[in-house]
């Protein structure tokens, strides 16, 4: 009997120590096992949340994690090196991208030109019939070079060319140059697509360079002596290279002035401030009108006060006691100052 009781008590204690793995939820929790994500659509208990936030949230999280773990345990498990491992399925939750979706690839210069002109790419045949070799020869790629070698085992030396020149080497050089040029153009296309400032390409050889670059190169070369080209002879009608950023390339020309002004700038600024502060203010029309009005009123009041004392002192134009003011407006109360001291009796009452 004692033993049974002991065992039961022990189990009870164990149960208290470990929380149950079954969690009751009002609404079912959505689990994405692949992402190991659990989202709980149930409302928070506002009252408990306010009373004991930390504990409540911890409990809630535990319950939800328990549900997730339960689901993971339902997956097929296997044992790898003393560890029990479950293979997670593919995640179902779609997360938003970090970056924007990449747009269409920028067109290369040729593609752009071809599109403008409506040039379509023609598909070449993979093999062409060569009449010299009397067989089918690949247009490009494997065995094309071989076929070329067989076909051009001898090369003609044109009359206007140095007879000692190696025509085969020349052919290779031309080809290498083409490859290099293509490479540069490829780089330029990348730069253009990325919209960054490309470094100056420099002198690309007489075939590629335009007249502008040639002139720049000539000018730079001429100035690149110990005396920065001072004693270099000039050709008739020679023109100095011009354009954006060309001046910086030519040695010996003046550097861009530093924008640090020093004392002179300070003096200039102070003079400018002085002229601004000493500027005479414009006429404040509103204020001028109000001042004028006030003066008029004082004058009028004076006149009226005077008229009250001596009757018909002026030309006899005004009749009665203090007739209407000239302007025809009623004098308003509380506007401006009355010349109390001068007038003595103040405004007339009717």
């Amino acid at each position, binding site marked *: 009997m004692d033993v049974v009781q002991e065992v039961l008590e022990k189990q009870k204690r164990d149960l208290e120590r470990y929380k149950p793995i079954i969690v009751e939820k009002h609404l079912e929790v959505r689990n994405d096992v692949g992402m190991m994500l659990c989202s709980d659509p149930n409302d928070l208990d506002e009252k408990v949340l306010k009373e004991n936030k930390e504990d409540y949230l911890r409990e809630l999280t535990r319950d939800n994690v328990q549900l997730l773990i339960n689901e993971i345990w339902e997956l097929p498990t296997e044992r790898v090196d003393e560890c029990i491992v479950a293979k997670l399925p593919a995640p179902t939750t779609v997360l938003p991208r970090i970056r924007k979706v990449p747009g269409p690839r920028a067109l290369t210069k040729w593609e752009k030109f071809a599109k403008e002109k409506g040039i379509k790419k023609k598909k070449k045949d993979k093999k062409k019939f060569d009449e010299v070799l009397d067989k089918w020869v690949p247009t490009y790629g494997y065995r094309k070079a071989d076929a070329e070698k067989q076909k051009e085992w001898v090369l003609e030396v044109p009359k206007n060319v140095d007879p000692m020149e190696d025509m085969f080497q020349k052919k290779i050089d031309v080809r290498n140059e083409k490859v290099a040029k293509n490479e540069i153009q490829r780089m330029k296309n990348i730069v253009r697509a990325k919209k960054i*400032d490309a470094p100056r390409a420099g002198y690309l050889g007489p075939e590629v360079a335009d007249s502008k670059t040639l002139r720049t190169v000539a000018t730079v070369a001429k100035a690149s002596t110990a005396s920065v080209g001072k004693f270099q002879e000039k050709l008739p009608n020679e023109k100095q290279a011009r354009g954006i950023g060309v001046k910086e390339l030519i040695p010996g020309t003046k550097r861009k002035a*530093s*924008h*640090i*002004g*020093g004392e002179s*700038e*300070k003096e200039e*600024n*102070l003079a*400018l*401030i002085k002229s*601004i*502060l000493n500027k005479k203010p414009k006429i404040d029309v509103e204020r001028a009108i109000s001042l004028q009005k006030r003066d008029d009123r004082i004058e009028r009041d004076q006149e009226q006060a005077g008229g009250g004392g001596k009757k018909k002192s002026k030309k006899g134009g005004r009749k009665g006691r203090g007739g209407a003011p000239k302007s025809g407006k009623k004098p308003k109360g509380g506007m401006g100052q009355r010349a109390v001291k001068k007038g003595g009796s103040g405004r007339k009452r009717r």
Partner: protein
Amino acid sequence: MKRLSEERAKILFEKLAKFIGPNVKQLIDRPDGTYCFREHRDRVYYVSEKILKLAETFNPNQLVCVGTCFGKFTKSNKLKLHITALTYLAPYAQYKIWVKPSFEQQFLYGNHVPKSGLGRITENTPQYAGTVVYSMSDMPLGFGVAARSTADCKLADPLATVCFHQADIGEYIRSEDTLF
């Protein structure tokens, strides 16, 4: 980074004089070093010469900002002062407006100051004078333009605007990307 042209320098100093009057001189004529105004991407920066020398080594295309941004020239060549200039305007301000604590938030959301929000105002503020707006605990909140002179404020009805909003410290959050 370039020096301001004569025209733009004039516009700048005129604008600053509206707020701080003859104290403009003290921005240029400082005992603790040479300070100057520089223009970069139509923005005016107030920089010490020491920092300017360091900044000169950078490629202007890659330079974002140097010193304190005072404002920005619009396409029609008018200067708009930015809130970042407040640090230099506030200590020298000639005309000040204090707003009530209840209106502080409204002002920080970019609203004009009505008379009901007005706590205090410097005496003899003329109409359309540049004013620095403070909270009642003397914290500078922004700046604006007086819509009415001090005398007119007394007579105005409670909803009438007393100060037009120009910039407030809420802009540090609202227009973070265009401020510097």
